[in-house]
């Protein structure tokens, strides 16, 4: 049993807690005075008027005369605001919500000022005291001034431009608030009422197939302050892009509207995250740019692949799938141009340079760019070579030339790596073993997510570098498979064990690469999967490095490697090969090892057109 004193103490504490809760809005308003010029002006004016009322109190008649006019004007303004509000805003609209409108037009402030003035006047007149009634009359004047300010601000909101400005400002403020600290960003973004209102409005417009509404909302996000380029802003760009694509794929949103708005958002994302400055970009900036470019690249590749799948399954229309595939290919092309320090058909100096300035950022980007069978992925190796070595690769992957072999030699062959870029890259890798391991991990990610070759690829979904051509697939695979750092089955087994078994340490290049892509990883629907979690893809990545690159070359070591594997992993690898690599016309495969070896002959399709030199 508690004593009466304890009970009283408990009651007092509860009363104090309740009082604090009720007073919280007022306390919060007072605390905000230092941050808000409007609140500061209101408070200073109220203080000055109090001093005036104390120094020169008015007679009862003067107060009544003054109040008759000011209260009439107050009522007129109130009516005017109510009419505009009723005509311009839907009460159910969450974007902008009543809270945002109120904070913009200072509605509560001037109504509360008017209420306070009326109370003081009434009290002063009843009690026959001049100072409160004088102060009330003066406060009414102040309320009228604020009311006029509020009325003008509300009029501004009645136009589309004005509303857009308010929404941009509101969005900017919300993103500013949630963006730091980095840990817990996802949770804060999900809990933020403003961001939820924005996304809710977006989903609603997309569900209604309201093209204008969707475009406006995408425009708001893409035109928020250019300095707004934190992780939260970038994540919201990717999230909204996905909502657009999803609404076009499985909803009713016009695919042209969806792809148009998504293109605006991807453009805005790239502008905010990555500017091709050439030199002088610090590593954190380069890593942030790489993270955004990598996630956007893999998302776009995934989108094209998913559009194809859903179209073939009749879940989505062919026109919607085609629009999204075309958007994906275009946007990835833009990303490639941004990554390339010296892109073909550069429009001017702004196209020159790259935001990817160190080995970790380049690898982070190309890792994302080569996932999900993304278009132009083999061409992506050219800027990688150029950034990492400081020189251009003089060869053509379509002819069978190996960018990775060239890169390995340029960095680690005796007497090479003499330029500053190559030296810095060599230092980042540490040794050739790490170079080999990291590129094997990269290739496992790319191979695991290749499209299912057994699925039909309708002609209407064929785009440049998005087609079922086995030669193109062979070229993509060969960019990795031609990176040959072992020649025997025993060496291949050791490489496989190292690929899967070597965890590395914090601070090594692979960890830096993963860290660069991590901050935005949750903003796209596909999870980031560590390559060693894809055992069959690791095996195929190693096996492809033993497979003959030209017809007639022996494949004994490849077969020895495959037949030396336990049945479970060999069968899983055969299933992966059957899904991702085309079966040759003549396939006398008698077992999984034969089947894998036969399908890896897709590598030999590359460079068959190569003419003999004159």
């Amino acid at each position, binding site marked *: 049993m508690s004593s009466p004193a304890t009970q009283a103490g408990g009651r007092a504490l509860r009363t104090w807690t309740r009082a604090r809760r009720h007073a919280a809005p007022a306390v919060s308003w007072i605390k905000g005075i230092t941050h808000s010029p409007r609140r500061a002006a209101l408070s200073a004016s109220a203080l000055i008027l109090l001093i005036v009322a104390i120094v020169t109190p008015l007679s009862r008649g003067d107060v009544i005369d003054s109040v008759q006019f000011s209260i009439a004007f107050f009522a007129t303004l109130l009516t005017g605001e109510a009419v505009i509000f009723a005509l311009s805003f839907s009460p159910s609209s969450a974007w902008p919500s009543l809270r945002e409108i109120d904070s913009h037009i200072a509605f509560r402030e001037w109504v509360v000022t008017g209420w306070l003035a009326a109370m003081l006047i009434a009290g002063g007149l009843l009690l026959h005291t001049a100072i409160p009634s004088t102060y009330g009359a003066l406060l009414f004047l102040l309320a009228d001034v604020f009311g006029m300010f509020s009325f003008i601000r509300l009029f501004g909101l009645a136009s589309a431009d004005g509303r857009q400005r308010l929404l941009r400002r509101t969005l900017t403020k919300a993103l500013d608030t949630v963006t730091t600290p980095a840990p817990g960003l996802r949770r804060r973004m999900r809990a933020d009422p403003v961001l939820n209102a924005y996304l809710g409005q977006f989903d609603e417009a997309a569900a209604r197939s309201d093209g204008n509404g969707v475009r406006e909302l995408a425009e708001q996000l893409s035109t928020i302050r250019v300095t707004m380029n934190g992780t939260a802003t970038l994540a919201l760009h990717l999230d909204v892009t996905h909502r657009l694509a999803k609404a076009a794929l499985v909803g009713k949103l016009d695919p042209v509207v969806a792809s148009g708005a998504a293109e605006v958002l991807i453009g805005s994302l790239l502008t905010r995250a990555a500017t091709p400055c050439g030199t002088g970009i610090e590593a954190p900036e380069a890593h942030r740019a790489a993270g955004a470019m990598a996630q956007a690249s893999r998302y776009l590749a*995934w989108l094209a692949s998913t559009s194809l799948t859903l179209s073939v399954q009749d879940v989505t229309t062919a026109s919607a799938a085609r629009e999204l595939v075309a958007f994906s290919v275009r946007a990835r092309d833009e990303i490639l141009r941004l990554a390339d320090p010296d892109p073909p058909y550069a429009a001017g100096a702004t196209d020159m340079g790259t935001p990817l300035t160190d080995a970790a950022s380049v690898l982070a980007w190309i890792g994302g760019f080569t996932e999900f069978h993304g278009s132009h992925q083999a061409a992506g190796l050219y800027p990688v070579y150029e950034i990492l070595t400081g020189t251009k690769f003089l060869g053509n992957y379509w002819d069978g030339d190996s960018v990775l072999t060239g890169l390995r030699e340029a960095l680690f062959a005796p007497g090479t790596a003499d330029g500053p870029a190559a030296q810095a890259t060599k230092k980042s890798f540490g040794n050739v073993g790490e170079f080999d391991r990291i590129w094997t991990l990269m290739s496992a990610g790319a191979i695991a997510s290749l499209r299912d070759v057994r699925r039909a690829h309708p002609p209407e979904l064929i785009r440049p570098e998005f087609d079922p051509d086995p030669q193109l697939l062979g070229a993509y695979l060969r960019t990795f498979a031609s990176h040959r750092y072992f020649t025997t089955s025993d060496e291949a087994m050791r490489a496989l064990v190292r690929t899967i078994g070597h965890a590395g340490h914090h601070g090594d290049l692979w960890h830096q690469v993963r860290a660069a892509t991590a901050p935005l990883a949750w903003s796209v629907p*596909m999870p980031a999967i560590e390559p060693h979690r894809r055992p069959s893809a690791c095996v195929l990545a190693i096996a492809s490095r033993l497979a003959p690159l030209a017809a007639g070359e022996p494949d004994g070591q490849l077969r020895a490697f495959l037949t030396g594997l336990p049945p479970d992993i060999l069968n899983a690898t055969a299933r992966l090969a059957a899904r991702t690599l085309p079966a040759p016309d003549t396939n006398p495969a008698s077992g999984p090892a034969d089947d894998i070896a036969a399908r890896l002959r897709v590598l030999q399709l590359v460079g068959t057109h190569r003419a003999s030199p004159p």
Partner: protein
Amino acid sequence: MTTIDPTPWREALAAIHDRQVTAVLAMQCDLGWLRPAAAVLRDEIDEALAALAMGRRRVRIDRILLHSLPAIGDVPPEELAALNAAHADWLYRLAVVGVLLPEAARPKVHRLIVGGSQRSVGAVDGIELQLNGAWPDPDAAAASLGILRRTGATTPLTGYDIDMDGPFGDADPSVYL
């Protein structure tokens, strides 16, 4: 925080390929193995033992690792999460590497079962090499061998639950929609 002295480990690893070595017994139950400072040495040991298993000579390899972390209440939640993640990742990698090797050659990884409220496993880490069928330091090997012989003290690490195909989303990425 325990710091692991790499010297005896590296000396032992340098000797494991000697023809006289007939078995290897390694105990790695200290939490220090899961901290970033030990990552390089951990990889060296894992790779060396895998290389020994892949060699032409049959050498029995027994490893004792933690099944789960002991009760440690004095570490911040982020550090505990990092330790758990490192432990899970280590066991996963060892399991997959084991699955890649022929059954007869696989290192036998025994996971030492730790009680929910147990604060320490009470075992001394170390690596012992058996030469021509005999342990040069029987007392040092006895503790680890005792654990292996005690019924129910450990549970073997197997690869039966490893998804060799990788995540389903690789085969059909549209599931992420």
